[in-house]
């Protein structure tokens, strides 16, 4: 086991190269719906169990299934009404189980990126080759059902091994989302190739807010809009990223969908907001800031350190 991830160096929030998003925008706002398939009787991964109750956990399984039957359609309609595209964190088995959902995503010109095969098949204990095989499966499946290339990665249920991000870079993934260390994209330290992190979020993610922090819809709106307002203000100095992760089984409930309406109305009434996808943010960063940031980080790391007692 390691004492840190090893995938990034320290980089203070002040003094960084200044980011300006396309059109002079100060904040890149992107929405990441997690479109997931949890299996009723998943195989056991020794590191972490899936369900709170013994299988079949009908309550938890059916709660998630609500997202694919009802919640997705309501959520997608609301996003389209506000002109906001999604970047889908996709369990690619959904392409096989429920192709109509993927067709709707493609109609709406959403990006598809990897959230593994099923949310019940975790990366823990996978060899590097096994992870490469999963990446290949995901890439082929996304290409087959959408024609898109696989550029982004959020590990299923945020499960990792110490090697995962090295493997992602070697397999040509452009951006990774599991590292929650920053509000701006960051170059990662991988053993070969290039990889960046793009900010995802657990702070304004509907699963922690509704299922762990027990928030009401009203409180959700207040937290998410406050997050936006602060990142928007800071974006005047240097461009920030706000990710709004969604789960259709939660935000798509009849008592919550108006909260998404309120959040998207708040965001889209501001000037200087770039409504982006994950891929677009990654591409802009690679094209304009990757080298500057890599240089800044390397220079920071050369700063003489105070002696450690």
């Amino acid at each position, binding site marked *: 086991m390691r004492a840190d991830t090893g995938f990034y160096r320290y980089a203070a929030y002040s003094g960084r190269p200044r980011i300006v998003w396309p059109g002079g925008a100060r904040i890149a706002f992107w929405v990441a719906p997690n479109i997931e398939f949890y299996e009723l009787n998943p195989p056991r991964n020794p590191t972490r169990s899936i369900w709170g109750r013994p299988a079949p956990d009908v309550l938890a399984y059916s709660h998630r299934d609500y997202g694919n039957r*009802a919640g997705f359609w309501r959520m997608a309609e609301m996003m389209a009404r506000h002109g906001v595209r999604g970047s889908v964190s996709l369990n690619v088995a959904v392409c096989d189980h429920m192709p109509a959902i993927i067709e709707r995503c493609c109609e709406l010109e959403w990006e598809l990126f990897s959230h593994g095969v099923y949310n019940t098949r975790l990366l823990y204990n996978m060899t590097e080759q096994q992870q490469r095989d*999963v990446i290949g499966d995901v890439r082929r499946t996304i290409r087959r059902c959408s024609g898109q290339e696989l550029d982004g990665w959020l590990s299923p249920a945020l499960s990792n091994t110490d090697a995962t991000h090295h493997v992602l870079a070697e397999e040509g993934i452009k951006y990774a989302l599991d590292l929650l260390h920053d509000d701006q994209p960051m170059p990662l330290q991988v053993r070969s190739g290039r990889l960046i992190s793009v900010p995802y979020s657990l702070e304004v993610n509907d699963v922690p807010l509704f299922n762990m922090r027990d928030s009401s819809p009203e409180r959700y709106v207040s937290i998410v809009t406050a997050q936006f307002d602060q990142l928007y203000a800071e974006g005047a100095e240097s461009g920030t990223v706000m990710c709004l992760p969604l789960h259709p089984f939660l935000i798509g409930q009849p008592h919550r969908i108006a909260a998404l309406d309120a959040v998207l109305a708040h965001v889209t009434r501001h000037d200087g907001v770039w409504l982006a996808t994950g891929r677009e943010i990654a591409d802009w960063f690679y094209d304009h800031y990757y080298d500057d940031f890599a240089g800044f980080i390397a220079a920071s790391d050369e700063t003489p350190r105070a002696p450690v007692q």
Partner: protein
Amino acid sequence: MTLPPDYFDYPYRGPGLDHAWFGHREAPGLPAIAWPGGKRVALFVCVHVQHFPMDMRNTPFRPTGGMERPYPSYWDYTRRDYGNRVGIFRLMRALDQAGMRATALVQAAAMSRYPALAAAIARQGWEVAAAGLDMDQLHYAGLDPAAERAMVADAVRVLREIFGPGVVGWHSPAHSQSDQTMQAVAEAGLDWVGDWVNDDMPYQVTTAAGPLTALPVAWELSDQRILFEQHQSTAEFADAVLRAFHTLDAEATVDSGRVLAVTLTPWVMGQPHRIPELVRLLHTLMAQPDVWSATASDLVRAWRSAAPA
């Protein structure tokens, strides 16, 4: 640790779900169903009538409301029992005042212990569905199938002896099922089951003993979830229900109604400080011209007459 090769087998990866109880249905493909009188929203209120034994084992998990403190936990036991002595009579009056008829999800032990409560429920004219034996007789995969069949049959027999042949529905304690539960429910001659929380609308379940209609017995929009587990206020509960009403009412048409399912619990909502808010909520809902107060059998009847099998 390594993973066995079959961790990468995906035996159900294809169209539909990973079980055979029902097919995948998506909101855009809902069959149109008109409620009586051209009403758009069927208000489906269920009331839990539970018994929590003080010596309960909480096996294989502690259900919501299960004993938390060391035995003998008067702290837990008497507060659950309060619901059957006092709280339920407040709910009866509140629903009466609003002109509503509830569907009671009744556990057999509560009726065997308290014949006076059984008589009160019968006088009230609520529809009664079987909800198992008590909160310590959970349905889960570890049960012997014959023993589970007997649990279902015993509960149905006790309730039919008291309430007659109108007992045609099933709710499993804590929404928990084994792989055998729904077949046992069909074998007991019941019409509907309300455990899975994956849809706003009814759908058909297939079992080896015949079909059942699945009804959306609310879990998200329940006082056990929002008030007891999530510690939100009664006003926040009312706000969530009204938000759900506005969403469903906007989605419904005269030809295609929706179900607003709300589940109440005497030991939660039957507290004095909560009742005024509940009364206001029910009056607000029943004052809507498009709302129809429906019991489970009302829904099953309308569904079966209108929807394809």
